[in-house]
């Protein structure tokens, strides 16, 4: 058996006030310490699936989850759809981090941005915070650029730097999984390259799921690729297989740019 960190089992998702489900019986494995890419045309449900994996949908009332999403964390297998209490959801989000399309620095200093999640998690000791902030910034390859301006506002950084700061902020919590929703689509090519390097680098510590519209990015970066279409998971396989020799005609059409 392969080494899973997460999996969805017959997972369906319906948005509040919508009749038809946006995701239909998705069965997707997420391999530990690998990068899994999710591709597919706009509106196929990539973000919806990603946002179920840390239950961020719960911010908005009335959505419906069905099936299972299992997390194989330190305490063994757990169906995250069964979590009810706010504290359990908070713990889930500490284990499953998320990076958004647009960088989301908080209106505070660079240091406080990185320390924020740790403080929420109850880390109070100043020297531990200092160490972990530095480590996270180093792991996210922006320590050099930021070490002399840790106390300046994060809002003054460039878009690419802000995105790496957001990654540092998430990495600092030592999550099991990191979810990326088109993390480079708002960035220039150089920043994009830096983020891609970073993602390839962090996979030794965390498992990564990344949504992307960029086929090169998916094939360069990922070990596994899931192709989705209209709320269905059409095909999931090793990235090489998906790109060189897909099983499904639909996958091939999409990858070769015949639609989407």
């Amino acid at each position, binding site marked *: 058996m392969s080494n899973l960190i997460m999996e969805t089992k017959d997972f369906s998702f319906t948005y509040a006030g919508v009749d038809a489900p946006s995701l239909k019986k998705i069965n997707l494995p997420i391999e530990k310490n690998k990068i899994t890419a999710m591709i597919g045309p706009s509106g196929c449900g990539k973000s919806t699936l990603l946002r179920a994996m840390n239950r*961020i949908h719960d911010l908005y009332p009335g959505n419906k989850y069905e099936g299972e999403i299992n997390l194989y964390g330190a305490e063994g297998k757990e169906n995250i759809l069964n979590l009810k209490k706010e504290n359990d959801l908070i713990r889930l*989000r500490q284990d499953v981090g*998320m990076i958004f399309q647009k960088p*989301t620095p908080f209106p505070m200093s660079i240091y406080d941005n990185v320390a*924020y*999640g740790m403080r*929420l998690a109850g880390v109070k000791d100043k020297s531990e915070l200092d160490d972990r902030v530095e480590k996270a910034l180093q792991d996210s390859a922006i320590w050099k650029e930021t070490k002399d301006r840790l106390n300046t506002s994060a809002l*003054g950084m460039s878009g690419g730097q802000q995105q790496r700061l*957001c990654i540092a902020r998430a990495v600092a919590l030592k999550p099991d999984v990191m979810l990326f929703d088109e993390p480079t689509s708002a960035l220039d090519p150089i920043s994009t390259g830096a983020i891609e390097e970073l993602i390839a680098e962090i996979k030794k510590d965390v498992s990564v799921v990344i949504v992307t519209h960029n086929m090169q990015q998916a094939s360069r970066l990922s070990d596994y690729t899931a192709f989705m279409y209209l709320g269905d998971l059409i095909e999931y396989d090793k990235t090489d297989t998906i790109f060189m020799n897909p099983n499904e005609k639909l996958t091939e059409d999409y990858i070769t740019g015949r639609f989407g």
Partner: protein
Amino acid sequence: MNRLLLNKIILVLSTLSAIIGISFLFWILATLTYKGVSSLHLSTFTEDLVNGGIRNLLVGQFTMALIASAIAVPIGMFAGIWLREYSNQSKLASVIRNLSDVMMSAPSIVIGVFVYALFVAPFGSYNGFAGIVALTIMMIPIIISTTDNMLALVPKELREAGIALGGSKHKIIVQIIIKAAKVGITTGVLLSFARIIGETAPLLFTSANNQFFTMDLTGQFPSLTVSIYNLATYPDEASRELAWAASFVLTAIVLIINLTGRYMTRNKK
């Protein structure tokens, strides 16, 4: 060619209207400054109305406006935060939002009459508390709508990012979202303060006026705006001069608060 001509005509017309509009404004400001400054003396600020100064009026006006703000700002902010962050845009939320909008556009004299009926008539005397209540009622909907609108400008991704880092909803709102909207909300508070400090109608038959210095809110309370209203109608030259001086001071105060607010928004970040 034709289009160029049309362009020019429109340009000339709009420049002209702008000039006319601005000229009136300057005319008012110039008259006010000229008449106001020439009627200002040191004693204007050191004497009370009874002796031909505005000291007690300034203190009274600010006392009422500040106490009203101290009540209206927290209430309005909490209501605005609830509307934007906690109501999930429910039916009740839209009722409250509409109600608040209606209240905001209610003529201030109506608020004055309302408060008169509730807080003046039953006690048989004008009183400072009633004035404060009227100003508070005026201010709350303005603060609600500023808070609501400024929070709406904070991208939802910022809330999601906070939640995704393991924050609880209320911590994210208090520590991040309000901080992100801080400048806008503070500006709104300043502008609404500038708005109520210059109001006459809500005070006219609530706190009315007082010639003497007093801090007793249970009786008639000195007011700069009500005094201007009264003084301007008196036949004697001294009263009218004092009205000019008071108007000038009031305008300067409102202008300074407004400019501070605008300056803050401009220097965001």
